[in-house]
């Protein structure tokens, strides 16, 4: 009998701590598959954030670093500059990357640091129990926006992919989703491309993954995935926002 489906080699056997129905498991898997496909496990160094993925260091078989809240791009910069021969990625959530770590994110992007960032946008702070994130949608009810996010008071959500694409430097920025098979398949390609860009020395690649948080959204996993389609993706359109390989071709 042939094995047709198994755990990627780059994932440890440690059981995920994520809630039932949480897409973090899928996204971890996609990252691990990309590492396997490219054969870079032995030279990859991953950086875990503060947030739900804080213990990602237990799940990947490559060397891992746990960073302070929001600082993963700075930590990645240090490592990549000190060890350019290694492949360095960060795995960050929306609070980590787009709130407390926005400065580090923008500056790593504008330096075109040759790193790969996997940015998981689920529009909420998950680990701390469902507070408003910089990416929470207008009107979205969270623990700290109990009457719904009022854009007049709490401002508008930050569209990270669009914002970073306004910079000249970053090499590749794409937004994907993991709410259905088609999107997952495409997300896999995008993540792989982001790692390949680094291997080829192209520079900063960020993949924004529109994700879900059934627990803190107060939805069933299935309903949460539907909400991604009905509410998240209309606000956060999928697609490639920056691809400098296209500019290179044009020249």
């Amino acid at each position, binding site marked *: 009998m042939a094995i047709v489906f198994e755990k990627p080699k780059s994932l*440890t056997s440690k059981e995920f701590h994520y809630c039932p129905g949480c897409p973090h498991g899928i996204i971890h898997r996609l990252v691990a598959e990309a590492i396997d496909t490219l054969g870079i*496990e*032995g*030279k*990859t*160094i991953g*950086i875990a954030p503060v947030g739900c993925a*804080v*213990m990602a*260091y*237990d799940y*990947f*078989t*490559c*060397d*891992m*670093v*746990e*960073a*302070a809240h929001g*600082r993963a791009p*700075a*930590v*990645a*910069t*240090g*490592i990549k*500059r*000190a*060890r350019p021969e*290694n*492949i360095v990625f960060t795995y960050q959530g929306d609070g980590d990357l787009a709130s407390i770590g926005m*400065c*580090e994110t*923008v*500056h790593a992007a504008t330096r075109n640091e040759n790193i790969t960032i996997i940015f998981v946008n689920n529009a909420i702070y998950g680990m701390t129990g469902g507070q408003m994130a910089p990416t929470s949608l207008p009107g979205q009810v969270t623990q700290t926006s109990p009457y719904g996010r009022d854009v007049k008071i709490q401002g508008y959500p930050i569209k990270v992919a669009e914002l970073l694409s306004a910079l000249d430097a970053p090499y590749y920025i794409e937004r994907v989703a993991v709410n259905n098979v088609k999107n997952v398949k495409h997300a896999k390609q995008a993540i792989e491309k982001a790692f390949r860009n680094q291997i080829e020395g192209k520079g900063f690649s960020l993949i924004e993954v529109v994700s879900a948080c059934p627990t803190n959204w107060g939805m069933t996993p299935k309903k949460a995935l539907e909400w991604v389609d009905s509410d998240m993706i209309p606000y956060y359109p999928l697609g490639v926002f920056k691809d400098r390989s296209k500019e290179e071709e044009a020249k």
Partner: protein
Amino acid sequence: MSEKVLMKGNEAIAESAIRSGCLCYFGYPITPQTELAAYMAKRMPKIGGVFLQAESEISAINMVYGVAGAGKRVMTSSSSPGVSLKQEGISYIAGADLPAVIVNVQRGGPGLGGIQPSQSDYFQATKGGGHGDYHLIVLTPSSVQEMADLTSLAFDLADKYRVPAMLLADGTMGQMMEPVLLPEPHDVTVEKSWAVCGTQMKREHNIINSLYLSPEVLEKTNFERYERYKQIEENEVRYESYLMDDAEYCIVAFGIAARVAKNAITAMRKEGIKVGLIRPITVWPFPVKPIREAADKVKGFVCVELSMGQMIDDVKLASECKKPVVLCNRAGGMIPSVDQIIETTKKMIEGGAR
């Protein structure tokens, strides 16, 4: 054979760091340590090293965290307000047991304060600074030569004990020029089997981390770390004892304050007043023993500081308050004068040392 060169203290730190195998430096502009970053910016590209002006002190210290985790010698420098910003990162570096060197060329505070020399970050440097139970090895240079020597030592000690080390200097030390004999470039290859540099598929993955959700496990890491701190306290205390053999009064001062104190001592000795100096070179670990021994011998201590009196607490603890300890201080960027030290000492003597 190298010969003495004239250098600013800030530059001496930079060159000494490079010669000690530090090829990665991250900083953010702030007076009065900017020459250090400028020196690194000039030199690093020429020797295949890394200089990066970070977007903030916070980013700089986290870049340091990354490089330290990746097993290479790394340094950042700043001045007081910037070092406050670095505290989070320093706590993480300590919590992840990483070696790194942090330079604080202190200026007056609190808040934005001023840009003139100060020693008012003593508490921050020696008592924690960031959150959690941890220590830095804190070295206090008192000359440009020591700016170079102690930088080199800071890297060695940091690697030896897997702890962050801080060079606690001040604006005067950073800005002044003195002849300095730089350390010869030396081999600094230290085995760092714990570092992240890729498993090369030859070992289990290494993890650089300070998160332990189980309190039992976290407690254990704290206890183990403090065992190492105990070794540091036993082995790495450094101080200078100056004219203490026959001293009836003991001045305790470090950095620029110790330099001024020496002039005061020379002047007082000419008048027949037997004053000596204990100059802590490490303020953590603090030279407890020599001060305790002095407490049995001298009639009183004068603590000279560029702060509202911070080290004086450690002097009182070390001397077990057996003898009076008086403060001779200026703050906010001012420096105690020779005259002030003489006056304070004489007042203590006249007051029956109380």
